[in-house]
C-alpha cells in the first residue's frame, strides 16, 4: 500500500495568526494525510531541517505578515542547497497576485489566499504529490 502523504505545516517569521494553519492541519488530517505542525515562529533553517528529518512530501507555510517575499525564497533556497527539492513547498496567506506569480516562477507551488476552500487545498496536495511520486519512480 502506498504510504500516506506527509505534510509539514509551519508558521515562519514573527506572525502569530495561526487560525488558518490549524484549520488546514485538521482538514488535511481528516483527508487522511499525516500532518506535522511545527508551531509558531520557526526560522527557515528549522523548517527545512524538520522537513528532512520527518521525510515529508510537502511543506505548507502560512504567512500573513507581508514577509512572504523574504521567507518563501529562503526556504526554497535551503531545500535546494540540501538536495531536498523533491519536497513540495506550497503555502498561503495574505499575498498579492503579483507576488504569487513571482514566487511561483522561483519554484514555489500553489499559494492559497483568503477565500480558498479546504477541498481545493486537499485536492491540490494529493494531485501534486501523486505526480511527484510518479516522476521519481
Amino acid at each position, binding site marked *: 500500500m502506498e504510504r500516506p502523504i506527509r505534510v509539514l505545516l509551519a508558521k515562519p517569521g514573527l506572525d502569530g495568526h495561526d487560525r488558518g494553519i490549524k484549520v488546514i492541519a485538521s482538514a488535511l488530517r481528516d483527508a487522511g494525510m499525516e500532518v506535522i505542525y511545527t508551531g509558531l515562529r520557526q*526560522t527557515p533553517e528549522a523548517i527545512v531541517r524538520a522537513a528532512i528529518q520527518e521525510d515529508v512530501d510537502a511543506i505548507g507555510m502560512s504567512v500573513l505578515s507581508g514577509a512572504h517575499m523574504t521567507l518563501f525564497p529562503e526556504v526554497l533556497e535551503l531545500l535546494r542547497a540540501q538536495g531536498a527539492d523533491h519536497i513540495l513547498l506550497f503555502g498561503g496567506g495574505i499575498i498579492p497576485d503579483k507576488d504569487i506569480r513571482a514566487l511561483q516562477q522561483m519554484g514555489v507551488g500553489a499559494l492559497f489566499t483568503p477565500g480558498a476552500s479546504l477541498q481545493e487545498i486537499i485536492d491540490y496536495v494529493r494531485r501534486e504529490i501523486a505526480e511527484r511520486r510518479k516522476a521519481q519512480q
Partner: protein
Amino acid sequence: MDKVAQGKARWAARAAQSPCADDRQFITVSGTPIQPLYTPLDIQDLDFEKDIGFPGSFPFTRGVRDTMYRGKLWTMRQFAGLGSAKQTNERFHYLLAHGQTGLSVAFDLPTLMGYDSDHPRSKGEVGRCGVAVDSLQDMEVIFSGIPLDRISTSMTINAPASILLAMYIAVAEKQGIPSWKLTGTIQNDILKEYIAQKEWIYPPAPSMRLITDTMAFCAQHVPKWNTISISGYHIREAGSTAVQELAFTLADGFAYVEAGIAAGLDVDVFAPRLSFFFNAHLDLFEEVAKYRAARRLWARYMRDKYGAKKPESWLLRFHTQTAGCSLTAQQPENNIIRTAYEALAGVLGGTQSLHTNSMDETYALPTEHAVKIALRTQQILAYEIGVANTIDPLAGSYFVEALTDQMEKGAEAYFAEIEKRGGVLKCIEQGYFQREIAEAAYRYQRQIENQERIVVGVNRFTEEGDTGTIPILEIDPAVEHEQCVALKRLRSERDNDKVQRALADLRRVAEGTENTVPAILECVRVYATEGEIVDVLRSVFGEYQEPVLL
C-alpha cells in the same frame, strides 16, 4: 402568561401545517440555535430592575452612561500604522482632517515582539503590518504636530506595552504636556496573547508583574489612561464563538483584577481604568446580546465578587472593531456592507469607540480611499440613520433579552469550567482555550464548505474574476533599510554611557520587586532602543515557549 402560552401553542400548530413549514435548524454565526418566534414566555424570569434597569445604573445592561450617544457619540477610532513613522504621521493627519476623533496605532511585528528593526528576526517584517518603532525618536515623528493633550491615542501593544507607554509619556514631556493630561489606551493584555494573538515575549508570571506595575504607575502619574484593554477581538478572530469570546475575555479581566489585588492595589483605584475590546461579527442580534451580557456580568462580578465599591469600577466600557475574519477576498466591495452591519451591532450594543474595517483588508493594509469609506460608514451611522437617537433600543425585545440571558449563562458555564481547571493561567498551559477556539474555527470553516452557512460571493452568488478588482497598498521594502540606517545613526549619536547606566538600573529593578515603569521611562528618555530594553527584561524574566498543540 397562560394566555400567551395557549396562543403560542395555537400558532405553532398552524405554522407546522403551513405549506412553507421548514424544519431546518436556524443558528447564529456562532452556532446557537434560534427559535422561530420569541414571546414574553422566553423572558418571564427576567426582572427589569435587576437584569435590565436604566442606563448608567447597575447592572448597566443598557449602557454605561446616563445619556449614552445623545450626550456623546462613540469615538471613531480607525486603527492605522504603516511603514515608517513619517508615513504613519501623514496618515494620522489625513484621518484627523477627515473627522476622526481618536488615534489608534498599529505597530509592526518586530515592535510587538521587542526586536529592533535590524535584528535578524525582523528581516522582511519591518513596517509591514504596522509602523516600526525602535526608539523615542520614531515616536517623536509619529506624533509630530499632534497635540497629545487634546487627542486620545490607543496603542495596540502588549508584551512591550510599558515601554511604548513610556515613549508616549516622553513625547508628551517634549511637547510640554504633563502625564496626568494624557488620555488613551494601551492594549497591554498579555493573557489573550497566550490564548489567541500569540505575540508574547516573557512567561506569564513576569508579564503579569509588568501589567500590575503599569496599573500602579498610571494610577499615580497617568490617571486618565486606560491601562489594559482586555481584548476579545483576537479571540474571536482566532475562530471562537461569541460566547467563548465573551467568557474568555471576562475571565482574563477577572484574572487581571485578581493580580492587581494580589499585588496590594486597591481594586477601586485600578478597576475604573480597565477597558474592553470586542469584535463585532456578522450576527447582529447575537453581537448585541453579547455586549449587553458583558456589561451585566462585569458589573455583578466587580461589585459582588471583587468588592469594588465605586460605581466606576463596575462599568464595562469597550471599544469595538468589526470582524476582519468575516471579510472576503471575493467581491471585496461587499465588505463595505458587511462592515456597516457589524458597526451597527456595535452601536446598538452601546460601544464607546469603534473601528470599521476597510474593504481591502483581506489583501493588505488599507489604502487611503478604502479607509475613508470605512470612516464614512461610521459617520453615516452616527448622523443619518437615527440609531443614536435613543438608548439601547433593542431592550425589551423578547428575542434580544432571551439571547442576552443565554449568553450570560453560557459565559458562566465557561467560568465554572475554567475554575475547575485551576484558573486562566492553568488553562493556557493546558492549551484549553487554544483547543476550544481551534475546534470552533474548524467547525465554522466546514459549515462554509458544506454550504450550511452562506457567504455571498464565496459559496453562493459567485462571479468569475471577482478578486483583485480594487487597488492595493504596497509597503516599500526600502522602509526596512531606512529604518536600519536611522537606528545605526542613533546608536552612534546618543550618549551611550547614559544608555548603559539606565539599562543597568533597569536590570537591578527587574531583578528586585520595585516598580519597573520609572526605570523603563529613564531608558526611553536617553534613547535606549526597544530591543535593548526588552533584552534586559528578557534576560531577567526568560522567554515564553508555547507547547505545540494540535
